């Protein structure tokens, strides 16, 4: 689905400094070699199954289904993965690839901290050095994850430039990569950045839809009517969509963080409010002003608080294959509480955006229809922030 220069329709590409070009070319060559290498794939599968707890469950949410009174709802439980989110799928793949390439040091950006924790975990496991860049604002919102990364042996560098959130962490990780390339792999956390990252990350996350397909066929004997996931950069969503893209009968829905609403400036709903632009190595949709200055986006969710979206999503939007819907902070918080009470599953506030949209559409669907929602991560990390959102004075 990628053409040779890393384009998805008009999106994607390699808009990066010349200093990094040979690094991404080397990465692409290594990836093209190892992705077809049986030994590499055997090692990765072993890590997935024996370390990361794959395959993850496809759980029938019976109470939620009954309560909403419409479509049958299944939850793809990426929250049960080691480290508590889908991020580990991509990280194990990239860390293994980096190791094969002879790299000894991983750098990463992180928003909510999940990708940083996953990268620190893989680095610990594989004996690699690890440096994680995290917006200073996010280090406060997700203090526990900062501690987890340090506990795992990583160095966490708070980023104070710009809005001190995820986009600035990406910028800073890119700057660090141009500074030290020889021994360092930039373990990008989402399906974004310059080619080949959107393809590599998608391929490692595609295990999600590969499993869903197999599991739903076993349980229901047919494909789902809707698969849905939250979208920031879009890695759990593309992983959820990928093996269903050829199945025209399966609706693909990405749930964007609308923050306080898409009619306000305090939003991170890129596809719904952004324009085509070029940033962080790729052409895609970005929240920006009329002169192309990147907008300071907002969402309650640190993991979705990003002004762009992966180029493959931009393309799926352009061709009408996937729908991208906005979900506000309020709706996500309600869904966070709803899933906790109804199913005894505390979802990440990111994943709660997808749950919120399912709550809206499921009652309008028939009882013989099926929705699969990917629960991209667990919500323990968010409890203090949501309590504060509800006016309770809780601190970690």
């Amino acid at each position, binding site marked *: 689905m990628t053409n040779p*220069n890393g384009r998805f329709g008009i999106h994607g*590409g*390699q*808009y*990066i*400094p*010349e*200093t*990094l*070009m*040979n*690094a991404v070319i080397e990465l692409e060559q290594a990836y093209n070699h190892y992705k077809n290498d049986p030994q590499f794939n055997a090692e990765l599968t072993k890590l997935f199954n024996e370390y990361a707890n794959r395959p993850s469950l496809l759980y029938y949410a019976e109470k939620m289904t009954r309560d909403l009174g419409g479509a049958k709802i299944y939850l793809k439980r990426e929250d049960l993965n080691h480290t508590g989110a889908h991020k580990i799928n991509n990280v194990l793949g990239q860390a293994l690839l980096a190791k094969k390439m002879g790299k000894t040091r991983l750098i990463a950006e992180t928003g909510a901290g999940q990708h940083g924790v996953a990268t620190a975990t893989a680095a610990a496991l594989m004996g690699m050095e690890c440096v994680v860049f995290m917006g200073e604002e996010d280090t406060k919102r997700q203090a526990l994850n900062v501690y987890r990364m340090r506990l795992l042996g990583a160095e966490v560098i708070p980023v104070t*430039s*710009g809005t001190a959130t995820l*986009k*600035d962490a990406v*910028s800073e990780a*890119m*700057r660090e990569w*141009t*500074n*030290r*390339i020889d021994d360092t792999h930039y373990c990008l956390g989402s399906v974004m950045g310059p080619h080949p990252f959107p393809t590599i990350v998608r391929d490692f996350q595609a295990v999600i839809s590969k499993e869903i397909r197999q599991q739903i066929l076993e349980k229901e004997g047919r494909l789902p009517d809707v698969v849905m996931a939250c979208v920031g950069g879009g890695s759990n969503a593309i992983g959820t969509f990928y093996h269903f893209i050829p199945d025209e009968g399966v609706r693909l829905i990405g749930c964007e963080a609308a923050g306080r609403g898409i009619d306000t400036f305090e939003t991170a709903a890129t596809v719904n409010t952004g*324009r085509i*632009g*070029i*940033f*962080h*190595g790729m*052409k895609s949709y*970005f929240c*920006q002003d*009329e*002169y*192309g*200055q*990147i907008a300071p986006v907002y969402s309650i969710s640190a993991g979705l608080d990003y002004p762009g979206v992966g180029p493959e999503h931009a393309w799926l939007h352009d061709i009408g294959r996937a729908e991208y819907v906005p979900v506000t902070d309020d709706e996500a918080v309600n869904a966070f509480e709803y899933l906790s009470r109804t199913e005894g599953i505390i979802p990440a506030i990111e994943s709660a955006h997808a749950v919120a949209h399912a709550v809206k559409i499921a009652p309008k669907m028939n009882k013989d229809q099926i929705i699969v929602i990917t629960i991209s991560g667990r919500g323990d990390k968010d409890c203090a922030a949501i309590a504060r959102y509800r006016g309770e004075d809780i601190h970690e």
Partner: protein
Amino acid sequence: MSNIRNAFKNGKAFIPFITCGDPDLETTGKIVRAMAEAGADLIELGIPFSDPTAEGPVIQGANIRALAGGVTTDKIFAFVSELRKDVTVPLVFMTYANVVFSYGIERFAAKCEEVGIDGIILPDVPFEEKDEFAPICRAHNVDFISLIAPTSENRIAMIAKEAEGFIYLVSSLGVTGMRSEIQTDLGAIVQKIRENSDVPCAVGFGISNPEQAAKAAAVSDGVIVGSAIVRQIGEHGKDAAPVVGAFVGKMKQAITK
């Protein structure tokens, strides 16, 4: 022959960089005139971008100050148009792909030609992506400047062969900013460039004092200095013009010897 070539006729070229609108356009105008008078052979004008990923902290700071001051691409075009009434030194814009793309590449290039901009440097547009920009710039007599880095190695010939205006040789790994020492074997890279192109080659990134400038100029056709000047502007604000002018004079002298 583009106006940029003229910049390299007066011995080794000294190329200062400043960010437009830092702290305001009136001051930028004074600094440009002071630099031209002090012997700057070509001036790089930065159009600020919210997220300048190739810049170190000093130029990041200038971008933030300029945007906070309310400068926009349109205001900068109007400013250059005014500047061109008396300033003849070759001028190039240095900005990021999204600033040009969002303005409309064709509209941006046409506007550059109209106001008298001679070239564009986009550090986030490498050889592989330049066909989206370079042919449109060329049609408007604006040179699309190519960058070559210490990591370019096998890519040098390919880039040099298609270079126009001048080649921006990035002296070091990392982002812009002052360095105590430049470790790259610049002479070897310049030699490889020479084998493939007769376009002049200027060295930038990390050069902040006369000694470093003289050393870089000895193996190339000119030197580019950004952060050292932008830091002075950060310190002196609206009164920076004479300070920067004196510094430029000293640097030009150092590379002329």
